[in-house]
């Protein structure tokens, strides 16, 4: 069985873990995996899918860079009778017969979970600083939307500052540093809501350098649940993180193997549900990640 896998890129540690897990899963199952890194460019991804089709692979797994623009190349795959499974992000297609299924988390839901946790923890009274992901990315848009939809119900919760830190740790630190200064040293800020863990990890350092205690003086909530954030949870510097599992390879291959055998119809969205890890419930996962290795 030959499967082509078109990955977004390697822009974060989370993404690399995702790629590696898909590769490991393919090896375990004896699948011949054609891996292609698109370096965050949709055009590269379309090129890769075209060349998978030209090579005559049995199935294609795509982790799309953006939601739109897949119709022509998916049609081409369909003409060549190659099934497509989408993982991670969504695709925007009217004709959902072009792909078998989509295995992905729900960004809006993640934003909601983060907001719900925060509103519970602060009883709905909170001045929030938001660190956005890359402007225009679907993760940033979805998480922002979900989060805002929840806090809209709490009149005493509001976002006082919002700025992009491009999903990176270094930017997270730099932006937080300035925001703290602009907000009078950060005394008035009750929480930091970060669209991913990396930015949160950077921001924590800025908070510490400003003489405040992250997690105590300022709640820190983010999304992803990467390894480093567990260390921060253990140190009490982060309040909560919403899990977004990178292990989507297994379910994707399950679907492909079954589809190739039975051609059965799948639900168009298999949601990868994520837990919310907090300073209370992180221990088990922490052990699973660090002690076993």
């Amino acid at each position, binding site marked *: 069985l030959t499967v082509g896998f078109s990955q977004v890129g390697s822009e*974060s540690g989370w993404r690399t873990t995702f*790629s590696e897990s898909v590769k490991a899963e393919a090896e375990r199952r004896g699948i011949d995996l054609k891996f292609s890194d698109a370096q965050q460019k949709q055009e590269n991804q379309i090129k890769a899918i075209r060349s998978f089709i030209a090579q005559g692979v049995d199935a294609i797994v795509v982790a799309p860079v953006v939601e739109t623009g897949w119709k022509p190349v998916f049609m081409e795959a369909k003409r060549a009778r190659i099934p497509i499974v989408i993982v991670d992000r969504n695709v925007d297609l009217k004709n959902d017969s072009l792909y078998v299924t989509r295995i992905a988390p729900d960004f809006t839901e993640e934003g909601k979970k983060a907001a719900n946790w925060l509103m519970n923890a602060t009883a709905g009274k909170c001045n929030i600083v938001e660190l956005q992901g890359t402007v225009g990315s679907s993760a940033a848009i979805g998480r922002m939307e979900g989060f805002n939809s929840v806090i809209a119900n709490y009149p005493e919760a509001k976002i006082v500052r919002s700025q992009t830190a491009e999903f990176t740790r*270094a930017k997270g630190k730099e932006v937080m540093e300035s925001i703290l200064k*602009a907000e009078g040293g950060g005394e008035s800020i009750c929480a930091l809501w970060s669209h991913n863990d990396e930015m949160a*990890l950077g921001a924590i350092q800025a908070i510490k*350098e400003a003489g405040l205690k992250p997690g105590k003086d300022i709640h820190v909530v983010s999304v992803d649940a990467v390894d480093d954030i567990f260390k921060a949870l253990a140190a009490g510097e982060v309040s909560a993180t919403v899990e977004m599992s990178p292990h989507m390879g297994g379910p994707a291959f399950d679907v492909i193997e079954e589809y190739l055998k039975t051609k059965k119809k799948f639900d168009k969205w298999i949601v990868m549900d994520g837990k919310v890890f907090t300073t209370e419930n992180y221990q088990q996962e922490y052990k699973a990640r660090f002690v076993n290795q």
Partner: protein
Amino acid sequence: MQSLSISPHLRRFIWPVLGLIFLLAVNLIIAPEFFQLEIKDGRIYGSLIDVLNRAAPVALLAIGMTLVIATGGVDLSVGSVMAIAGAVSASLIVAGVDSMVLVVGAGLTAGVLAGLVNGFLVGYFGIQPIVATLILMVAGRGIAQLINAGQIVTFSHEGFAYLGVGYFLGLPFPVVLVVVAFLLFQLLMRRTALGLFVESVGANSGASYYIGINDKMIKLMVYAVSGLCAALAGMIAAADIGGSDANNAGLWLELDAILAVVIGGASLMGGRFSIALSIIGALIIQTLTITIILSGVPPKFNLMIKAAVIIAILLLQSPQLHRQLSRFSLSLSRSSAARG
């Protein structure tokens, strides 16, 4: 014609410095606390210090880039070299190496090696600078990721962290490093003939050849210096966040560095250079970034603001605009004199 009293050398500083002052003044309006400086446990603390501190990596890159540009070249690989140096240091620390000399030395060596590769390709192999360094720009980030196996390698090492978050005489250590690097290269370029040779290679490589200047050697040297500066910047960036992020460290910073040099008034065709002006350029860029953050404008306007400010600052420096303006004000005063 009578304004010739200031030396031409100083005259070049006027507009970039005015641009910087203008931006700072904007901050005064949008965030009055911008100029507050306090001393907290022996450290100076405030937004102005942040500007200096955050500008440090780009300022370091700009020092090396200034020399490269003065020879008529350009170094696109500095961002990737930052990532490599950070990755090398981080992985050494994680592997249990404790000696600062080894860790920092290895990072710097990696940078110089990368620079030498670029310099060799440009100087001795005759490949156009933009392509020669494009190779390392693409491959270098791959190498950095290879070293880190694609992950963000986090570490904790007191000594190394000092590079990024330490304070020396109340100033953030990165700022001190920039000052040291500036003084070092300023001395090297202006108290020896190196600066003259660098300019001559950039101004007219044919003529340099006839004088017997070893242009290949000069090119090799400037790219090596650029690699060295990039490595230092990369280690600062890694030390700052306590981790080496091979994917994002220094991403697109080559453009900022080039921008800094050009805002400082250097020509990309080579020739005259001024390290001090390039550093002012770096400060302008960083002030702008912090201004945007402080202003609270939605992030989607960031790029537009950046574009507008760059064009404004460049136009401010353009003698052609000065001439137009003076002609315009002349005709204004004439017409008002006629009316009055």
